[in-house]
């Protein structure tokens, strides 16, 4: 299997007033296409930071991240936006849906950004069909006109996953996707991720829970900013 994403020598330090906090200390990582990787570690071990760096939501102080052999640090701002928009899909612990938009609009948002105002109108029909397909698959077909605050936590997270998948990214990054849910609902979300992985979707999931991490094909354990 080809490597989809790799990280070499990743360092990240946060400044907290006068002191500094070294979160990642020269971390190396490699994920192949089609894998379901779980990154597990205690709170503050740097797992979310690593995921943010892999998804280009944050920058590493040192080291490089290569997506399909290309160093994302060399990307222009435009390419970086395209990477965030089309190559990776991000699922957050707190869902991060837009309250002003309904379920369908939230899911369509990355596709709108991808195609722009003019392109949107020519692709609208097929994109909407894909959004409906995803929502149907996640059991949200009857919720498309609902606003996020009218949904349960599990439903919101499924909307967030549908949004992450709308542009058919090769890589799905999930940051504690069950962290804000009860165990039963969380289990439902994990099943969704497993199904997606079963369809060939590469998934990298961050969690602090060993039981949840065990659902992954590969477990990477982080402690004190390093893989152990």
């Amino acid at each position, binding site marked *: 299997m080809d490597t989809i994403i790799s990280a070499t020598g990743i360092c990240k330090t946060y400044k907290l007033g006068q002191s500094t906090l070294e979160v990642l200390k020269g971390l190396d990582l490699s994920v192949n296409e089609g894998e379901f990787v779980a990154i597990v570690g205690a709170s503050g071990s740097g797992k979310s930071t690593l995921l943010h760096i892999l998804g280009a939501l*944050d920058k590493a102080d040192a080291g490089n991240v290569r997506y399909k052999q290309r160093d994302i640090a060399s990307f222009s701002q*435009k390419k970086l936006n395209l990477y965030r928009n089309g190559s990776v899909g991000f699922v957050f612990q707190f869902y991060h849906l837009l309250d002003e938009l309904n379920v369908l609009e939230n899911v369509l*948002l990355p596709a709108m950004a991808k195609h722009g105002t003019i392109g949107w109108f020519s692709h609208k029909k097929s994109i909407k069909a894909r959004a409906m397909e995803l929502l149907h698959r996640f059991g949200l077909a009857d919720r498309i006109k609902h606003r996020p605050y009218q949904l349960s936590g599990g439903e919101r997270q499924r909307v967030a996953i549908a949004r992450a998948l709308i542009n058919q990214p090769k890589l799905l990054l999930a940051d504690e996707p069950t962290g804000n849910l009860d165990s039963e609902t969380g289990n439902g979300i994990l099943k969704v991720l497993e199904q997606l992985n079963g369809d060939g979707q590469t998934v990298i999931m961050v969690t602090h829970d060993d039981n949840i991490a065990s659902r992954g094909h590969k477990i990477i354990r982080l402690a004190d900013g390093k893989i152990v």
Partner: protein
Amino acid sequence: MLKRRITILAIASIALCVFITLVVMTVHNGIVNEFKGKNHRFAGDCVVSTDSLVGFTYYEDFLAELRAKPFVFAAAPAIKSFGLLNQPGSDINIGIEITGIEPGEFSRATGFGKTLYYNRLQPQDAFAHNYDKNLPGCVVGIIMMQGGTDKSGKYHHSSFRSRYEFSISCFPLTAKGALAKMSTGLVNSKTFIYADDSHTQIPKVDSKMIYIPFHFAQKLCGMDGPDKRVNAIHIKFAENTSVSEGTEKVKALWQSFLQKNDDKKYANLLQNVTVQKWTDFRRSSIAPMEKEQTMLLMLFIMLGFITVFIIFVVFYMIISHKSKDIGILKSIGISAISIVNIFLAFAFLVGAIGSLVGAVCGWAFVSKANDIEAWLFEEYGWQLWDRSVYAIGAIPDQVQINVVTLIVISAVAASLLGALIPSIQAARKTPVEILQVNQL
């Protein structure tokens, strides 16, 4: 986003700023323009005059030259002096300003005819009356005649003119500036009969001025000698001639007139004559108003800065409130420029809706301000200002489209400016910076 309460508050704050600016600017500009208009009507377009009570000679020649010019619509001479007014049987003398005019021609050159009450339609008959035919008529400033208005700002006239006689006395002067009757009774006196009153709406004029027939004024002031004199010539230009252009032409004409007459007797009197636009002629009256207008403009510029700041704060709050959304948008690959554009489009909408609401409300309020005030006066006896004290007939209610346009454009620009900095700041942050802050 437009439905959120903070957005509605932002629209309301912009609407209020536009409303207040439109109302104050319309009312104040209206008062200033009305005041200028009154002074323009009072003076005509241009005035050839001297401050000296002696006046200047050869005015008939200059009048003939003026009247021959196609850019001159009308030119009328005037005698201006001071005198004493006494009602027969009374021992009270009042200091007055006397203006001697030919009412027909003077009405063509100025707005005098429109200030009359009884002879408004026949200003040439301004001095006509139905009493003693041997006594000439006079037109009296309305404040001097009636003392003031009632509470509603109205003067009252009966359908017929009562007989009032006024004795007017002047100190006649020779062309050399000496008292003409040093050895006799010093003053010239003449009795006039009230023919009409004049309401220029300029309190200083309406409370002091008496108009009398030109030749009687000339006689009373001692200007009727072989070298007849006047104090002023009021000019109205033809429609296609602007005041500035016409005044320049009159100045040139006067210069050549001066050269032609510089060797004549009393030519020295011509040296004191000035040719002025009505704005310069009435400078002492208009200048305080203009100064007030400039001060108001300065205050509005300050208000403008405050408005921009308020809008900036409002947008800063809105955008800070939306920072999570910015983080989300950035995390799905929307560019910083697109995010700035989203907020600018939002700011434009808020600014446009707010300023349009403010402009419409302001327009409606200003156009109904007089009706509202009249209703308040009728129902509760409340008045914005006492019409018997202030010479303002009505609250100016003519909204100028260019003023509205300027205010609306400024409000929209302020909204865009207010939104620009916080949206740039927000768009510059990395997605994780924003989302982590919101997560906390």
